């Protein structure tokens, strides 16, 4: 029996005759593969350069290469009222009114397109703020449907949180009503300080509606 090497050179045994490759085991790495290799390496470098977040431990969004203003650390505070409003909403309101603002049919009324929120008919801005401060009890009509449930008071929230969440629900889900200022909430809170029980639709209907001007005098401070 000849050593494998010579065997291969002579005839390659049974197998080599049938097959075109005489150089089993010695095939060089094909050129296209080397090209591809370097092509991918180049792409990898580019990708890392763009989406490295500056190799920082506090950057979690690849679109962000550095903190705005070139600061060494993320900015603190300065929350947009709508962002604050959404935060208040997510923490307190979504359970009943849902993230979609559509509520739950037969149980919790919708906020999207609601005449209560948009101040149509007899509804006023003052009514909306009063409901948040004191709660709402008993049957109410929203968008042609009747709901009979109770909404708790949200008086523990700050004036700023109440104005923000109302501003948020008035500008989300296709709603487009003017923002509500923190000062206005403070005013209503002072006016209704004496009342202890929740409002009902009947009580509110007796109060003349107030409507805010389309351009607010002052935005709630962040």
């Amino acid at each position: 029996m000849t050593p494998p090497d010579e065997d291969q050179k002579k005839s390659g045994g049974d197998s080599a005759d049938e097959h075109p490759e005489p150089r089993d085991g010695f095939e060089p790495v094909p050129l296209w593969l080397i090209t591809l290799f370097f092509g991918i390496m180049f792409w990898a470098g580019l990708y890392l350069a763009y989406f490295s977040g500056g190799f920082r431990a506090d950057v979690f969004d690849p679109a962000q290469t550095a903190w705005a203003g070139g600061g060494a650390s993320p900015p603190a505070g300065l929350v947009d009222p709508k962002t604050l409003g959404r935060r208040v909403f997510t923490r307190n309101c979504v359970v009943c009114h849902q993230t979609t603002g559509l509520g739950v049919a037969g149980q919790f009324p919708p906020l999207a397109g609601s005449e209560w929120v948009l101040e149509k008919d007899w509804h006023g801005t003052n009514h909306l703020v009063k409901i948040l401060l004191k709660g709402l009890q008993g049957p109410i009509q929203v968008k042609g449907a009747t709901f009979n449930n109770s909404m708790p008071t949200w008086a523990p929230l700050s004036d700023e949180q109440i104005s923000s969440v109302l501003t948020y629900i008035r500008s989300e889900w296709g709603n487009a009503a003017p923002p509500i200022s923190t000062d206005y909430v403070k005013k209503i809170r002072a006016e209704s300080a004496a009342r202890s029980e929740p409002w009902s639709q009947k009580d509110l209907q007796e109060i003349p509606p107030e409507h805010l001007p389309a351009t607010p005098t002052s935005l709630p401070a962040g």
Partner: protein
Amino acid sequence: MNRLPLIFLGVFVTFASSWIGLVVYPYFALGHMQPLPDEETGGTFPPGNSGLAVAGQRVYAANGCVYCHSQQVRLAPLTTDIAKGLGPRQTVARDYLRAQPVFLGTMRTGPDLSNIGARQPDANWHHRHLYEPRTVTDWSIMPSFRFLYKIRKIQGQPSDDAVKGLCGPHAPPPGWEVVPTADANALAAYILSLKRNYPLPESPEPPVK
């Protein structure tokens, strides 16, 4: 390439690179993070958990909740997590300071639980749901965790912690009530503690359109 040292060197160096990058680096960069003070209430972000909630993590782990429920809100606009209401912002490293173990999860056979404590704050709802998910959502495929509950005869007054609202075939027989065991109470406390809706500067909330 016939020598042991050369192969060993290569095998060692290639692997050590990823070990340094994906194990040692996060150990130093993320492993010693501190919570941030909450000036409003004097608490911290993320808030500390009650002892019951900490015990609940063990129940969560033992029964493998993590195989169907993730606990991460991924960034926008790459994903629609925020748009779908899973949370107000991307969850970042600081959100998981107090988690042990960290249940990030890799499946959403069930919904994400990063903010379940805020999205559904009613403890009885969770007990009802754990006891028999289909009394709450008829199409749910979550297994029932009724082995965490006891059915017992009502002695005089029904107990305060009995699960309310069980209906149909899942309701206990008249004169009997379903009460959570210590494990079930711990699990519910843990679920209710899952709130990642406080502000963190390194995770700005995306602006509202």
